[in-house]
Each structure stands twice: as C-alpha cells, then as structure tokens.
C-alpha cells in the first residue's frame, strides 16, 4: 500500500477479510441465540453495529469459532472462498435442519487492479457497518417464520474453497449437504467494496 493511499480512508483485501470475519462471528453467535440452539443463559450481550448482540460464552463454542474464523480470514484475504455454510443439524439423527449460506463474491474495488492484493476500496466504514447492521436485524427477525428446532441441535461451519486449496492440519474435506424439501430465503447483502457477502437461509419446510 502506498503512502498516498494510506492517507485516504481505504480498505485493503486484508481489512475486508477482517470485516467479514467479524460479521461472521457476530452473525453465527446471533443465529445460535436467536434459533434457540443453546440455552439462553449461556449467552452474554455485547454492543456491536449499534445493536445488542448475544454472544455464546461456552468456551468450546468460542474456541471452535475462533479456530474456524482465523482460518477463514486467511483464506478470505487470498480470495479463496466461494461460500461459507453454517449447518444446523439434529444432534441425534444427524439430519440437516437448516443451513445459513454466506456467499462471498470478490469485487474489483476502486483501482480495478488485476492483482487482488493491490486492490483497495474507499467505501465508508460506517456505511459498511450500517449494511451489516441491517443484515443482523434481518437475522434476528427470521425467527418469525423459520420452523422451530425442537430437538437437541449442534452446528458446524463448512467452507467452500477453491479446488487448489491445501488442507491445513486438523481440517477435513466433507461432502455437500442436502436439506430435504428445502426453502430458501435470501436476506440483504452487504459489500466492503472488495467482497460482497450474500446471506441466505435454507430451511426444511415442515410438512
């Protein structure tokens, strides 16, 4: 990054990855709370994006998300991720009940550079935060139509990467998940100027 650019308020690919990973962190915690997957007493409220967001304080969940998201950030800053799925499954039958897709799309930024690491975006930070806030609000509003998860549930995060991605230690390759009789609802999207993130919830229609 040149010094001339640094004086402007600009976002690099790394910064964009950071913003998205932060969104994923708050988004996933919020989903865990709003969908009632874990007991409500294991959540603490924090202030973010001008909202009150409930974060799980279960140490196992925290470390799991920390590990997953740090790897995600690394891949995101290399534009190697197509999609991140948060999958909610029945803990006993292993049936997939719900899947939150966060689709990543690389954008050219301002200078349209062919080298992704040189791209920057001058999108206003508060505007990005407001866009994220709107999505977060929609996430908490989804309880009004999503079916009840009336069983002991667990969740997993699957990262859809490019073919040439190397498998890091402690990571596995897995297959695509299928929800029987699914319905999809697309929420709002936001963009950092370098990444566009679309949030879609797929859920099993109750018969």
């Amino acid at each position, binding site marked *: 990054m040149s010094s001339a650019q640094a004086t402007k308020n600009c976002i690099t690919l790394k910064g964009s990855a950071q913003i998205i990973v932060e969104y994923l962190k708050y988004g996933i915690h919020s989903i865990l709370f*709003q*969908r009632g997957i874990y007991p409500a007493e294991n959540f603490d409220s924090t202030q973010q994006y001008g909202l009150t967001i409930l974060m799980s304080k279960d140490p196992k969940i925290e470390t799991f998300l920390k590990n997953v998201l740090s790897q995600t950030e690394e891949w995101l800053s290399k534009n190697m991720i197509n999609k991140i799925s948060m999958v909610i499954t029945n803990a006993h039958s292993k049936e997939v009940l719900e899947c939150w897709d966060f689709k990543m799309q690389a954008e050219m930024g301002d200078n349209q550079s062919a080298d992704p690491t040189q791209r920057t975006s001058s999108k206003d930070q508060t505007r990005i935060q407001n866009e994220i806030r*709107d999505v977060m609000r929609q996430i908490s509003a989804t309880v009004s139509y999503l079916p009840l998860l009336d069983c002991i549930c667990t969740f997993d995060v*699957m990262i859809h990467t490019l*073919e040439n991605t190397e498998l890091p230690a402690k990571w596995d390759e*897995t297959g695509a998940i*299928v929800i029987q009789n699914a319905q999809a609802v697309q929420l709002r999207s936001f963009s950092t100027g370098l990444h566009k993130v679309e949030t879609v919830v*797929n859920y099993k229609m109750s018969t």
Partner: protein
Amino acid sequence: MSQFNFVSDLQNALIMDGETRGPAPRWKKKLEASLNGSVNTTRSVLSVSYNTSFSGVQAPTKTPGKSSEGKTKKPNTTPTKTPGGGDRFIPNRAATNFELAHFLVNKDSGDKSDEENDKATTSNSNSNESNVQASAHKGERQKLISEVAQVPGDSHGGRILCYQNKAPAAPESHTNPLKVVYSIKTPISTKSGSRYIPTTSERILDAPDFINDYYLNLMDWSGDNIVAVALGSCVYLWNAASGNIEQLTEFEEGDYAGSLSWIQEGQILAIGNSTGAVELWDCSKVKRLRVMDGHSARVGSLAWNSFLVSSGSRDGTIIHHDVRSREHKISSLAGHTQEVCGLKWSTDFKYLASGGNDNLVNVWSLASSGVGTASEALHKFNEHQAAVRALAWCPWQPSTLASGGGTADRCIKFWNVNNGSLIKSVDSKSQVCSLLFSRHYKELISAHGFANNQLTIWKYPTMVKQADLTGHTSRVLQMAMSPDGSTVISAGADETLRLWNCFAPDPLAAKKSASVNSKAKQSVFRQSIR
C-alpha cells in the same frame, strides 16, 4: 347440543357443492379468491410437486426494495418507499439451480420419466387426468427434485472443508426457548388478583377490513367518548355513549389511513395517510380542516401534544407539526432508519418516545423553547430484538416508559428516562402489539399475538400476571382506553373490536376511602374535645 352441531358440521362437510346457508363469511371469500388464484398457477406438472404452498404469495418482482440479482428493472408502480429496502421475507429459488436439476432429474429417472412424459403429453387435453398421474409420481419426484435442486452451481471444482473438532451439541436437558412462540398450548398461569377482573369482553363490534398491519395505528378513543377506527380505506366514528356510527371519510382507491389520533380535548382528529400527509378533521362538523405534508412515505404513527402533532413515517423520520401556523413543519427528527410504528408523548408532555422497525426506542426531550423536541435523541435504547410498536408512559411515574417488542423479542421493558437505565424486562412469551397503563390501578395491560391472542393485565411494578383476557381469534393490533379509564377497546386482526370493562373502579374501595376520610375527621374532632 354439541353432538347436533357435530352432525350438522359433518353434513356441511359432506355436501361440498351444496348451497351455503346465507352469505359466505368474509374470510371464506378471501380464501376462495386466493385459492382460485393459485389453481391457475399449478397447471404444469413440474410445479405441482414443489412448494405450491407459496404460490399464493405474490411474485417476488413485486416486492418493493427486494434486491435480487437479474431483476435490475423494477416496475415504476412499486417505488421503494422504505429506506434501506423492504423488510419482507419471501422465499425464493435463487439458491436452487433449476436448470441443472431438471437435467439431472430427467437423466436419473431415465426411461421412467420418458414414459411419464409420454403420458403427460398424451393426456394433455385432459388436465384432470394428468394431475392424477402427477400426484401418483409426486412423492418420488419431489424427493428427486429436492435433492437435485440444491446441487450447487459451482460444484465442479472447489472443495468443502470443515474443522475437525466440532462444536458441542446443546446439553440434553435443553429445550428450545422459542417453543413458546410456536406452541398453542402455552400454560396460562395467572395469579388470582386482589380484585375481580371480568375476563370476557363486554361487547363485540364487527370491524370488516381492519388492516392487519403491525406498523399501523388504526384506532383511538377521544376524550369526548368517540372511537375513531379505520377500516380499509374508510374512517368511521363510533360514539361509545349513544352507539351511533358515522363515516368520517373515505380515501381514494388504493389509499388508506395509516394512523389515527385524537387531540387531548375536543373533536379534532389527526389522520396520517398512506401518501405521507397528515390530515386534520373537525369531527363535529365532519369537515377537513387542513392537510399537512412532509413525509415521503406513509404515516403510521401520530401523537398530540397540545397544538403540536408529531407524526412518524415509513421513511424513518418524525415531523413535528404546529397545527396553528401556516408553516406547520417545526422540525424533522431522523433517529430511525426504518418505519416508525410507535409514537407517544409522556403524560407530562416533556418527552416523546418513538419505536421503530429498526428495533430502536428513542426518547426525545422537549426543546428548551417549548416547541418540538431537540433534534438529537436523549436516549437510544437498542435492547429490543424486534420492531417496537407498543409504547406507554406510566401516569404515576412520569419518567417511566414501557416498551414491548415484536415476535423476535416478546419482551416488555421498562425504562427510566431520567438516567436512561433499564428498570425491568419481562418476557411476555408472545409478540407485544400494544401497552396501556391503567389510571385507577397500579396495573398495565398488554396486547399480544400468537399463540393466545390475549390481553394480559400485569401488576406494576412487580409484573405479576393478574388476568388473561382471551377472545380474539387473531392477534390484537391496537388498544385504546375510554376517557373515564374503566374500559379498554381492543382491535384484532380477526376484524373485531372488543370492549373490556377491566379497569372499572372498585365501588367497595371507593366507599372505604370515603369512610376513612370521615373517620379521620372524627378523630380530629375527638382530639379537640380532649
């Protein structure tokens, strides 16, 4: 008698094409209309099997502000009025890859589907027959389609990775707290209060075409004992003393009243309409006095403060109108990013509380000049997890504000606006549509939606449930209190208005206080003798 009812019900069910007795109820007509609409769309064999239940929903292209790719051209007839886009959730098929799915379905089922296609084409003239066949194969087809439709478009190439150490499952003892939202059988545990509260409605009024919209405020009760209510595009006045009904106005096709509010004293009614204007009506003369514009979207909430009427709109702004002056617009407050659906001046008229679809409750203090409010909110409360429509100020503690959240929140929260702190939060287990404080008792009444559609009376500040008033068959949207404070009127989405005589002053208590006074006098008299 019940068995006869059952038999007649059975007969009605058996005679499908028989004449119905009397005109069909409104809900039935609506249902039929929507069914007829969807029947046409379910002609093609493929679409029969997949999510036909949503065919009643309008095509997503008509949704204002919904951003879906490939639909850059929007019809001019549905301009985006909500800032930041629409907020309706409409299932779409953007995530499913139908072209690939179609190919895979045909490939996988091989000769079977060929055969089926043949049958379908031969019997095309007879649509009944093909429908029967379609339903025979419906089960397996549906399964295939649902499996195949989710094949991601970018499945060629790319890996799906996940971390080895999985997150733990929820503890076995855990039950989903959201269950209360979905289950009909929520236990109604009410502590028997110290007084008798009639739990059935005193009177039921029919309110056809009452708009079932959480964001509108369509009823108010004046100090002159007149209830104004908006039904469809009309505004009616119901005189609670005489029972007379009068039509105040009818809006033109497509327009409607979004909010109604009576001035504190007198016959002036403010109507916020769907075009964004606030109209003032003199109801004694049935005459429109003036129209005050200023909003770019519909006005869903209104609140009076003597000569000042504050209006909250879908465009997220609140405007203070001075109804006396020619330049009516005093100030505009931009504290919300989405529709303002709750607006109340405090009982001492020093604060204005506003609630919006952005889950915020803002409190504005009266400007030092005494006209309008300061342009910056005094407090911003963001603890609610859903839209805030229900707001009420405590009559005996002027700095206490009660607010209730929508379906995702279900909490009634109490705020001290002097220091901006949360006093108390109670989970009501159902969406909160309206809140009112009683003037005679230290009590509070809240109106709810699913599952019981009840009104709940709470003791304040202990928040012990006193009574559940049930009767509405759909969510209760609005409540208003009679001028004497004894009766509450509730408007439900079941298109009825119900009157509840739940805060009638206790005659015994009144007598007792009178006797206490006389006793006190007596003792003074005795003291003077000594």
